[in-house]
């Protein structure tokens, strides 16, 4: 009986003690650290600049991305391009491009032109092993036409690869598609 009373008091005490220890503090919001909300490709050739922007501020929330193309590309001009990845849920916006460049061996940007577009794309920068990275690139439109220009960032692809997504593998961090026009 003595035992039982002892046990009972322990149980009651522990329950009361633990129940009272909760403080009613309100949780803090989490801003996604890794999320890429914004892709900006800036292409410059002889004074003319074309900017391609895809912005999706609610990440995987229900809102669609806002995609804009500032103008058309001229056939025969070589555009020097750079791609910027931003997390704009943070203030100021975090530049994810820096992380991608720091971990260049684990990343690669791929560029795709759909059937209606005839152009030449070259990588403008490499990782530490001499394999292409692609945050810098160049685009030379060869003939007039219109179609989709896709920019894809892969995490942990096979490197080196043959330049196709199938061979590279890895995970897609970014895939954005812009409707562009090459004109004479």
């Amino acid at each position, binding site marked *: 009986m003595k035992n039982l009373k002892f046990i009972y008091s322990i149980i009651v005490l522990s329950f009361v003690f633990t129940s009272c220890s909760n403080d009613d503090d309100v949780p803090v919001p989490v801003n*996604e650290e890794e999320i890429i909300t914004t892709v900006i490709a800036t292409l410059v050739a002889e004074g003319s600049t074309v900017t391609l922007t895809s912005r999706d501020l609610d990440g*995987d929330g229900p809102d669609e991305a806002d995609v804009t193309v500032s103008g058309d590309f001229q056939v025969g001009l070589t555009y020097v391009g750079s791609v910027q990845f931003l997390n704009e849920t943070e203030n100021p916006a975090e530049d994810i491009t820096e992380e991608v460049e720091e971990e260049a061996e684990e990343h690669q940007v791929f560029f795709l032109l759909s059937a209606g577009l005839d152009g030449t794309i070259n990588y403008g920068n490499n990782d530490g092993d001499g394999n292409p990275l692609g945050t810098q690139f160049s685009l030379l439109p060869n003939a007039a036409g219109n179609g989709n220009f896709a920019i894809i960032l892969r995490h942990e692809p096979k490197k080196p690869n043959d330049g196709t997504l199938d061979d590279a593998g890895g995970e897609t961090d970014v895939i*954005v598609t812009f409707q562009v026009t090459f004109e004479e």
Partner: protein
Amino acid sequence: MKYFFMVVLAFLAYPTAISQNCDLTLRGTVIDMHDGTPLAGATVVLAGYDVAKITDFDGNFELTGLCTENYNLQISHPECTTRAFSVEISENTQSVFKLEHHLEELNEILIKGSTYYTKAETVLENRILLETLEGYSSASLGDALKTVSGVSSLNTGNTVVKPVINGLHSSRVTIINNGVRQQDQEWGAEHAPNIDLNTANSITVLKGAAALQYSGDAVGGVIVSEPAPITLRDSLYGKSILSGQTNGRGGAFTTTLTKSYENGWFARFQGTAKRYGDFEAPDYVLSNTGVSEQDFSVNVGLNKIQYGFDAYYSLFKNEIGILRASHLGGAEDQVVAINSEVPLVIQDFTYDIGTPRQDVTHQLAKLSGFYKWNELGTVRLSYDLQQNERFEFDVRRGDDDGKPSVDLELVTHNLELSLESDIGDAISLKTGVMGNFQENFANPSTGVRRLIPDYKQYKFAFYGIADYQVSEALNAEFGARFDHTYMDVFKFYRTSFWESRNYDVQFPELVIEDFGNQLLTNPELKFNNISATAGLSYEFGEDYVLFSNYSLASRAPNASELFSEGLHHSASRIELGDLRFNSEISQKIMVTAQKKGSRFSFAVNPYANFVQDFIVIEPTGVQQTIRGNFQVWEYRQTNARLLGVDLDASFRILEDLTYTHQFSIVKGWDTAQDQALINMPPASLNNGLQYVLPIKQRVRIGLESSYVFRQNEFPDNNFEVFLPETASFETVDVSTPPPAYHLMNLTAGTSFALGDVTKLDLNLKITNLFDTSYRDYLNRLRYYSDDLGRNLLVQLKINY
């Protein structure tokens, strides 16, 4: 004599004497209810008096000096369930008392102080015996449970194994570990029960919600895991099992040591360690599927017939690698992964566990005590505290590499008071009341939005179950339970989601702070749930029993169903819950016809389960994000109907040759949308032969064939995705079940006596004997890789 001594001690508190004017005699015989054999050494206690007798070799005892009145006898035997009898004495009387012989139930009697060992009287209890459990010593709880017909598993790879009872799982299955309801974030499909199988001596599966003393929301069923009994003698005993296997190139070691005293005190230590590297399919290594697990438990207590207490602590810690090739970006990656014959990442074998992986720690501390009042019954009070900590590590970039993506801590306190009493000879009553407090904390430092929000949950419940022994053959059972749940939740919603769901119009009062793109809300939810059960069991002759049971279960939606909102990386899909859900209510009718017998036995168990407001998650569209397209899966409520049958049979063809058979089928239908329910286990067929070789050293050989049919009823959730490489739309086939498969397993085992008490068992087991490549419909990684190839397991067990 020791039992006599023990009982006398227990009754010293009752200062009464037998009247001197009485001279009547009761002569009794105690026999085994099953086969009528006399029980020697049974303790007969004359309740309320300082008298106890031990039966002789023929099971006889004699009580003299009795008066003309009603006496209550309590008869116990070390290998039987203790029972109470009422005897009316008016002359010299001769009576027979029947006890039920159940060695493995000793623990129940002593720890729970209960005269009842059954969890539910009118549902067939499917018990997994120790021998089977020991065979799975190096595997998981879910693997061992699959030996029960009607139980399958929802897997993530081969190491995260979640039990499915008659087609239902997760929050719909209640798991009772050591008398405590397991609270280990069981809502998640990729969260396996955090229980070390080696702590169990016996596991019982109830395919329904009839055991209301445990829960009222077991729409699927209840799994009860119980520790080994403690013998009441001065003894030190234990067992160790060492296993090694080829697939995974690892093994497990488990050991249990128990010290017991005749005066009722006992202490036990149990520990397990497991380590495996990458597992292998027939044709390739399943990269990053290693496991590392360490568990231990300690238990001390005091057992008397009349009172006792028990203190228990257990720690379960495991780290499980998740197939590297299953970690994907969006649907574009999914197309490639599904269309590929082999996993997209195959590396050399390693013991390293990289990302993705789960790292889970579960701790349980429990204190319980009971006291038997003769008039009132057995009162039992218990308190338990569980802490469940879950980390999930994903493949991440930059500074976040090595930081968990999921960091959840779930703490649950539970206080319970129960009373088990007899009203006369025929009625026994279980009643109880419980209070429960649970707090979930999602650590914000992950840098990933919370999958499950911070919440506090308060629960209060009470129940009553009456068991009425109408006649020797007919038993009736009725029960009811009420649960009240209050949830106080702090949840951040994306503003865009809040508005797209129209919550801004329906629940503007819930918003307590606006962070621009996110809103902090404080939903307070209340659920009242009523559950009930009624059933009959009837014995025909010696061998046949018919069970019939109706159970009404009512389950409040869980945090995941209510509050999911965002990308679930491990499933590569966006999952959306709904704040407005109400409880789902299930009505299950089951009938079981059982034939017992040593030569031929069977059990056939048809059932029908109708669930109103069944919560199901299913695809509703495709969401475009910068990472690509993701399929959106939304929880919704519908009405469901599950019909099925489980069949078990065993036939002893020759003295040493036995044939066993199991068949299970379940059909799940969404009656509101008139389509099949997703993830219903396909029909399965198991046939086995066990043979003891006719040589001096007895060697047991077993051959098992396991055939799993293709699931032909499934909803079509395929969707199309645009691929920029080919500028074409491609179908993502996430629906089509894999083909049927057939596996053969071979076992062999023998025992050696090493002295008086020490026994060595050597067992060998080959699973997937023919190294068959197969995929299982209920494996969440079936899109990406084959299941396990051949495995050779060698197991050494020593009892001492």
